[in-house]
């Protein structure tokens, strides 16, 4: 008990010192810029490796991994989950929320009917197709709709 009483203040002091030391070093930790220094062309499949040869210190990941190949676009959830700060240097949050949102009535493919290159989900007659796709991979529905209980879902799924 006595040892504990001695240890606790020591541990607290060590913790405090660690925090102070960390704060003192924070200025040396690099960060990403708020926005991409050059405006990129709308609709362009960005190839980061065209300009960036090595990884940026703020991301600590190879920039080439973020080149917008078709594979990247299909699997973008993996990249956004661990480093959406890099996404936000070029994309506003609303770019993500065009599809990933809680309460919206209009399908993204209708909102962006003039941008078929954006590969918006649920194009065409998805109201029929979701009966097949939902059985194939229910997790893919849950990722966007599971916590949203969209009004459109609730209308039929009673």
């Amino acid at each position, binding site marked *: 008990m006595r040892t504990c009483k001695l240890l606790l203040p020591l541990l607290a002091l060590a913790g405090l010192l660690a925090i102070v030391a960390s704060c003192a070093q924070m200025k040396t930790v690099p960060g990403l810029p708020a926005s991409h220094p050059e405006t990129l062309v709308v609709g362009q499949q960005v190839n980061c490796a065209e300009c960036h040869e090595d990884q940026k210190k703020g991301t600590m990941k190879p920039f080439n991994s973020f080149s917008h190949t078709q594979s990247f676009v299909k699997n973008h959830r993996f990249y956004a989950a661990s480093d959406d700060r890099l996404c936000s240097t070029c994309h506003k949050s609303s770019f*993500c929320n065009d599809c990933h949102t809680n309460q919206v009535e209009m399908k993204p493919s209708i909102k962006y009917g003039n941008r078929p290159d954006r590969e918006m989900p649920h194009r065409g007659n998805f109201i029929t197709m979701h009966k097949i796709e939902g059985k194939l991979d229910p997790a893919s529905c849950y990722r966007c709709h599971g916590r949203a209980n969209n009004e459109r879902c609730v209308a039929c799924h009673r």
Partner: protein
Amino acid sequence: MKKAFCALLCAALFAATSSGTLAADVTVDSSTLFGIGRRDISGASKERLLPATEFLGITADKLADGNLSLHLYGWGRADLADKSFNSDKSSGSLTYGYLQYRFNQAGTTVRAGRLFVREGIVNEQIDGISARTDLPMGFGLSFFGGATVHTAHISGETSDGKGDTLYGGRVNYRYKGLLEIGLSGVYESASPTLVTHTAGDYRRVGGDIWITPVKAVDIIGHSSYNTETQKFAEHTYLLNVKPLQHLVVTGEFNQHREQSYLYAWTMFSAAALNPNDKSSSAGLSASYEINKNLELAADYKHYSREFGSADRFGFDTRVNYKDNSIRGGIGYHYLNAGEGFAIGANPSASYHEFRCYAMRDTKSYFAAIDLLGDFFKDKIYNENSAWEATGSLGYHFTPALALSGDLSYGRNPQFTEEAKALLRLTYNMTYNMTYTGIGGKK
């Protein structure tokens, strides 16, 4: 919510003016869409539909000392004729509305308001606060907490099945450019008791990883564990290999223990699912950029559930010319799936899917055409196919202001014939606003 809005705007104004200057880059993104249609349901009177929907985003950057920003985005709909969506003639929602302060070092950001959080296994919307920073020696830390954003009530219930508060966070460690590992968790207060549905509390922990052992290889993924069911909920991993500069070969593996992963999906009473049921998928894809104008991709995926397995394969091609002002794409996929995945009593769920699109964008006009067709191996509701053609034509009045119109027509098992028309007015502009008040910088 109105109170929260006012508080946010007041806070932004106070922060901006407290430094003696009012300076900001204000970006306005507005899309006003008028839908035009008729609804003719047998046994009911014909309805004329004219919904007007406004999507509005406002971003004010460089407030106060230059590191503060305000972000607002939401939508509203008003029916100018008969009711178009539900029993209300108008509706709307604030998607996000938050203040963000971004420190100059260590990528530190603090956000407060309605916001989306993406941290490892977590992807949530809250009314609250989130903060994130990198730390020395490769560590990083983030946390969030606040009120759950409630949505539509589940049928027959008086709630959406979610708890009222939500919090969580992530710690991570990075080693040079080779490795990042993270631990994250989310905890929601107890879900409400429901009348006919089974609600499950939303509480998960998990780990994520990103390894780049050599420059041409990435392994990314995460696993999550449901602390309520005390079972793993999800394993999802991606392997990227770049043997050539413009070739990416991707392998993917996903496995979900359905009860544990879907546990908080109250609409389907997922907490009551069989705890042993799993769904898995594994796939392989390759995309190759032949030159700046042409990219080819091919993919294959195998799906497996308790009641059967299915396979999907196909290809996509993308082209662009004249500095991206002409773009197009062609794709084909075939799903081979048995009766377990079929609609109704059909013997299979197999279908072919074709898609092609083309776009032209000039300084004055822009146009697009999009064709999508699904051709079923076995008829669905007595129809062989579902297809839709959409054409869009627009005009840029100025670089910021454009008017466009879409027409689409299709046939499908659900509605037999479906025709839609839409008018779209878009306005995207950034204003640089600078006002120097008394006592401001000289």
